[in-house]
């Protein structure tokens, strides 16, 4: 059809998809290591957005130079979310290692509800405006298909994902993570501290979610305590779509879901955007639970 429209939708989908991918990485990393659906992960994303908002607000009021606010706020969000992720694991999941499979999942759901209401009560139930912190990017004016925030989201998430991939591939810790994911007992025998690796996984996953939270908050500019649920569900869908436990899978899954949503809204109707995501989730889990890039696992007794 109209090629320009197609390209626009494509880039819109990429933007969306890269956010999903950033959050999906958190789900997939954790699932890869301890086979737990970290239901509260969406809430960490929400906390990231809120922390950035609060820090940016304080800096703004006390007259911090405009250009630096976004960077400081993002760093703060990452640090705090990493701490939240770390604490979350220590409080809600670590005591349940070795418990029946459903126990940590119920605990995770409880944590998700808890965190939502924690922000609701400590901050506000209303929507709050997020300051516009992006620098002007005049060179994008000629490029009609991308707005500055879309551009920034694409850039930052690409860089983050490349850094993550390098980290997992080449560093000692990354190798230890991969080893633990493949076989926890074997890794223990090799002298890898599983507790440390699990904590590290939560820290990395939460930092990525925080990054996603800040990016979306500065893109949409309005946030409330409830933004984590839907975004978390969609990111989880992306993780499942790509094959949960697989890192490239999460990235591919995120992009595919983002593009699918964008094209459905563009060519059919926005009414079905959310139904589409949930339908994909169900169909994938039922028909191909290992996703696009996942490997089929044989259940052992």
């Amino acid at each position, binding site marked *: 059809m109209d090629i320009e*429209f197609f390209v626009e939708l494509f880039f*819109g*989908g990429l933007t969306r998809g890269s956010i*999903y991918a950033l959050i999906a990485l958190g789900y997939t990393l954790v699932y890869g290591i301890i086979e737990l659906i970290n239901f509260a992960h969406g809430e960490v994303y929400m906390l990231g957005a809120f922390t950035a908002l609060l820090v940016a607000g304080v800096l703004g009021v006390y007259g911090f130079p405009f250009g630096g606010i976004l960077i400081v706020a993002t760093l703060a969000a990452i640090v705090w979310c990493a701490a939240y992720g770390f604490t979350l694991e220590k409080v809600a999941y670590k005591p349940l290692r070795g418990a029946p499979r459903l126990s940590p999942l119920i605990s995770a759901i409880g944590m998700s509800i808890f965190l939502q209401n924690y922000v609701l009560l400590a901050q506000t*139930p209303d929507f709050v405006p997020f300051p516009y912190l992006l620098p002007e990017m005049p060179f994008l004016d000629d490029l009609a298909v991308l*707005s*500055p925030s879309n551009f920034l989201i694409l850039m930052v998430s690409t860089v983050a994902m490349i850094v993550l991939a390098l980290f997992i591939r080449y560093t000692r810790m990354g190798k230890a993570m991969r080893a633990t994911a493949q076989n926890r007992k074997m890794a223990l025998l090799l002298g890898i501290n599983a507790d440390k690796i699990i904590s590290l996984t939560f820290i990395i996953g939460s930092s990525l979610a925080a990054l996603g939270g800040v990016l979306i908050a500065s893109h*949409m500019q*309005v946030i409330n305590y409830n933004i984590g649920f839907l975004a978390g569900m969609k990111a989880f869908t992306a993780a499942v779509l790509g094959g949960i436990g697989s890192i490239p899978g999460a990235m591919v899954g995120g992009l595919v879901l983002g593009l699918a949503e964008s094209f459905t*809204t563009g060519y059919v109707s926005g009414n079905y955007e959310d139904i589409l995501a949930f339908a994909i989730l169900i169909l994938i889990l039922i028909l191909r639970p290992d996703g696009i890039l996942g490997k089929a696992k044989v259940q052992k007794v």
Partner: protein
Amino acid sequence: MKKGLTCLAAMALCLALAAPAQTAETIKIGVQGAHSGDLASYGVPSLNAVKLVIEQVNAKGGVLGRKVELVAQDDQCKPEMATNAATKLISDQSDVVVGPICTGPTTASLPIFQQANIIVVSPTATAPALTTAGKHPLFFRTVAHDNAQAQLTSDFLLKKLGVKKVAFLHDNGEYGKGFADNNRVFLEKEGVETVLYEAVSADAVDFSAVVRKIRRLKPDAVVFGGYQPLASKLVQQMRRDRVQTPFIGPDGVKDETFLKMTGKASEGVYASYPKDTSALPLYKEAREAHIKAFGSEPGFGYYNAWAAAQCLLAAIEKSGGTDTAKLKTALRETSVDTPLGKINFNELGDASGMALSIYQVQNGKFVELDHNLTLK
């Protein structure tokens, strides 16, 4: 076991004694709405308004020599809680009720009030069917229903903007969708083409697909049904993607927070809203009372609730009591000066005399345009 039974009987006796122990001398105004929870900001201003009106009236010696008392019940804007709240108001022997705030709870509680034969005046429930369906003869409201808003906005779109093609977006809520639907009906009747009609998910992480679609379809205006948070997300993304199509919304959009959230992007946005009555002395009085009592500017629905309480008290005074049938006639026949202008109620229960205007954001402020509609 015997002990248990005696205990139970004693408790029952206590309950039975406690219920009718209230005096019939005061006039009780029930207030139902969201007083806690995530929609509290829509309900609390109404509660404050009724509180202040009652204080004023009591300071002057009450109505018909009787003191007025406030009975508040929280429904959190949830229909399933609203029926509880309504029955509680009835069992607390409220004579009249101001509220509920949201449409869903209103629909759920009206049959209950109906059976208890209690007059209900909602300050903010705008669903047209509440009055136009004719099922709730005891229901009144001091707010324009959504049809009137849609009538005004569609008239404005046709006459002032001369639209031929329109895109409709809504939040898939009753209020937002209702506004979009009503506009669509009015506009299509005049031969305007609907190029887009869809729901927008308020929690989506990005709106570029729908914004690009608007850009491609080139409508003459975007009619938006919903509240301010979603509107500000949409407007910002539209303007950032250089879609300058005129944007018009219902009263849920006209809000200071909207201006603050959107900044420059909101320039030129239209919204319908009750005609500016801030020059009226009663309005100033109501505003000052709130600032004095709560130290802040009044919030959503405050003046409507103020007017509702005033109308009810005036009707009680005129009919000489709280007899429902007499109150009903009195509400229709008495014109009351309120912060919203001179109001009385028509056959259906809608306030006549109130006026709506179109506002536009100009230089970061909502400015009233010379295009309005007076309710009949």
